[in-house]
């Protein structure tokens, strides 16, 4: 799990997932 600092009460988490033979960095923003 990758995270970035909490700003404006918003959490930002991400994970790099292999999709078939490509790589998607899926980034999810959610309120704290």
């Amino acid at each position, binding site marked *: 799990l990758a995270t970035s600092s909490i700003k404006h009460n918003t959490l930002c988490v991400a994970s790099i*997932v292999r999709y078939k033979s490509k790589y998607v960095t899926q980034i999810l923003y959610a309120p704290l």
Partner: protein
Amino acid sequence: SKEGDSTISILPTSLPQIHRANMLAQGLPAASKISSLVTKKSKTKWHFGIRSRSYPLDVMGEIYIALKNLGAEWARPSEQDLWTIRVRWKYNMNTPDFDQNANSNNSNTTTTIPDLMKMVIQLFQIEANNYLVDFKFDGWESSTGKPINNLNMSEDEMCTFSAYPFLHLSTRLIMELAVNS
């Protein structure tokens, strides 16, 4: 090759600098008041997991309390490895609530869709007084205990896991830790 005969161009009056000059020339007060949108492309700074400067045992205590508050369950840690927590969360389609007793074998649980997400949470020391809590997705299980039929999946299929439930549960845990601390 034949691009020479192209008459494609950029409309000069549409360039922001020229537009502003034209608006000023018309003496419109807004032209000096309204500034152009400056969006700082702040490069997102990523970290693995979440960092902590608390005392290691305190960090572990906070994580167990947060997991308990979220209704998660975990395997009893071995003496050799106190810094790793193997977690299991009930995650069903309607509300991703956390199962108080994930082992309940209520027969009507749909066995086709695995509803227990597994996660490994591990504490790492980066340097003195600087620790990192790492979250790792560890697959799914079904609360009925039936094995998931992902054994016959091809290598490619195995990786078509949706990361969003994992990301969502991670945000819930981080929120719980942030709120508690």
